């Protein structure tokens, strides 16, 4: 029997889990730098920024390393990685590597020759960054993803304000997911109640209508909101027609449109988990509370609400965790200030090719996801404990 499962497990490990872990590993992996600048790092041992530019031995090691990297075809990757830490260093590295491989710096002393050709190497801060990039593993990207960096002495310090954008993105992602979850929870309680208490044919029709949007693709439901909320779309035209506004509103590409689209997309999940719990609560409980003289609101709050709380929590968990990882919807209907972590991961992968940072942000996203799942799960366990004991 175990043999029947083996092909699937192998497939998931090779095609899915392996690649995901391999990608997440890029967040700490420094082998492309360490592997290509081995001699330079060895020569830099003991060098301090305060002692000025490195000496002749370091330059010889650097030229040897760069020539090798060029011959192995790794100079582009190396230049890219150094450029991430010291913006503008890319061409310096590539040009120097080309000259080194062409044998332009064959006879020592090299230091002055290199500095004369490529003055960029005279910048002490570049050497500080290179020195900091030694070692097989790096915490550079993980720190970067929470707006921190290593200072001159290796201490952890806040990143400069113009590069500190990730904590904002993190807080925004959690906040948007929280608001969406709250809206879904508040909106779906009366609907779920209506589905449960309606007479049978209506109950089934309403249930089917709630599920129907789940049958259509997420992309299509997102695109539809762009069409509906655009400047001359139906919503603006209806408002103009009724005279409520005299100028079309800009509804799309805002936080408002993002909330509308995400709530519409995720609401069915919340309704489904509430309905499944509500169906198990006998209607006689509410009737008993009412017949004993409790006002309807009190009866609902004291009797119905505690009983449907588990459904509330599991629905919220599903909506929140889904919302955290949303990419398509924020990208298409949100504005520049409404982007969530997923969009940054895609951006750093596609546009700036900063894979270490994309991986570090992915690690961050997965950690929040796991933490919130654990939180909801334990809240649910706490809430359902008294009833299990009874």
């Amino acid at each position, binding site marked *: 029997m175990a043999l029947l499962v083996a092909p699937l497990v192998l497939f998931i490990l090779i095609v899915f889990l*392996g690649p995901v872990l391999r990608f997440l590993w890029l967040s700490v992996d420094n082998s492309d730098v360490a592997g290509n600048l081995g001699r330079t790092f060895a020569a830099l041992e003991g060098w301090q920024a305060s002692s000025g530019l490195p000496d002749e031995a370091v330059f010889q090691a650097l030229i040897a390393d760069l020539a090798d990297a060029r011959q192995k075809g790794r100079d582009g990757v190396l230049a890219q990685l150094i450029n991430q830490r010291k913006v503008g260093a890319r061409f310096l590295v590539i040009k120097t590597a080309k000259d080194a491989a062409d044998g332009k710096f064959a006879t020592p002393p090299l230091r002055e020759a290199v500095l004369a050709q490529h003055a960029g190497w005279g910048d002490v801060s570049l050497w500080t960054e290179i020195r900091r990039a030694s070692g097989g593993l790096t915490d550079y990207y993980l720190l970067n993803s929470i707006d921190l960096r290593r200072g001159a002495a290796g201490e952890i310090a806040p990143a400069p304000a113009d590069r500190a954008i990730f904590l904002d993105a993190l807080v925004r992602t959690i906040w948007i997911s929280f608001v969406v979850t709250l809206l879904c929870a508040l909106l779906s309680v009366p609907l779920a109640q209506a589905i449960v208490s309606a007479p049978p044919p209506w109950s089934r029709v309403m249930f089917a209508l709630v599920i129907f949007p789940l049958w259509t693709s997420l992309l299509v439901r997102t695109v539809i909101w762009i069409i509906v909320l655009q400047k001359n779309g139906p919503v603006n035209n209806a408002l103009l027609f009724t005279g409520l506004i005299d100028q079309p509103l800009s509804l799309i590409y805002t936080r408002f449109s993002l909330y509308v689209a995400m709530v519409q997309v995720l609401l069915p999940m919340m309704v489904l988990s509430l309905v499944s719990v509500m169906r198990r609560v006998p209607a006689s409980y509410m009737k008993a509370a009412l017949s004993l003289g409790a006002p309807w609101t009190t009866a609902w709050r004291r009797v119905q609400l505690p009983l449907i709380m588990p459904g509330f929590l599991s629905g919220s968990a599903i909506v929140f965790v889904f919302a955290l990882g949303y990419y*398509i919807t924020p990208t298409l209907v949100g504005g520049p200030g409404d982007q969530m972590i997923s969009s940054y991961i895609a951006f750093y992968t596609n546009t700036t090719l900063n894979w270490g940072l994309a991986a570090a942000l992915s690690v961050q996203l997965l950690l929040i996801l796991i933490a919130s799942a654990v939180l909801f799960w334990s809240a649910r366990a706490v809430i359902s404990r008294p009833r299990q004991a009874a």
Partner: protein
Amino acid sequence: MKPATLRSATMYVYAALLLAFMLVPLLIIVPMSLTSGNALTFPTPGYSLRWYHELIDDPRWLKSFWNSIIIGVSATLLSCALGIPAAIGIAWGEFPGKRLIYAIVATPLVVPVVIVGVAAFFFFAELGLAGQKSAIILTHTALAVPVVLTTVVASLSRFDRTLVRAAQSLGAGTGRIFFKVILPLISPGVVSGAIIAFIISFDEVVVASFLSTGEERTLPRMIFSGVRESVSPAIASVAVLLVVFSAALLGIVGWLQSRATRSHRTRPS
């Protein structure tokens, strides 16, 4: 009016409004896509099938549709080939680490799809397969296989295992038992799992946006990049067609599942 009546009336009115919020956008694009004008507006200046013709006449849309079909069908077949045997093993077998195996197989359901897309991009780029259909097919299979597994495990739980022993005692081999006894009886679960797997692949856009380029673009990928430039009535027409297409397929699943539970309930025991 008594307060209770008023309360339930309010509740139903509210339910109707919320359902309208969820469904009207899906419906309103149908008349909008039938516009005879050049832009998406509502109310429309006039009705025509112009933009649907435009879709059929545009080789890029047609090509991407076939790409999606080929990828979807291949991913479905592969998910079934991997998922059905595994479902039998999990439903009937007892072996150590079963929970761990279930957890491993379920990971594609929980990892955010952007991470899946980026990771797959790296993996297949190293293999030199980035931009190939095979890369998308394999990743879509990973995303779809947990669903096939769960639906087939569910239908196996209703399966009477004495039938397998009966077939064995009558001298049938393993292959024959599988194709002649097990498969026909679990086919509703297999078919619904397969349809959902197909739709997962057919509707999937994030992995496709990392892995498909140029000629290999899938239909959702075409919509995604089209929307970022401009929302033309052609996009609305594709959206309508996709809604109708997936709704029809999932209608079949709903029908199969309700039939399966009904026949299970009425079966004498």
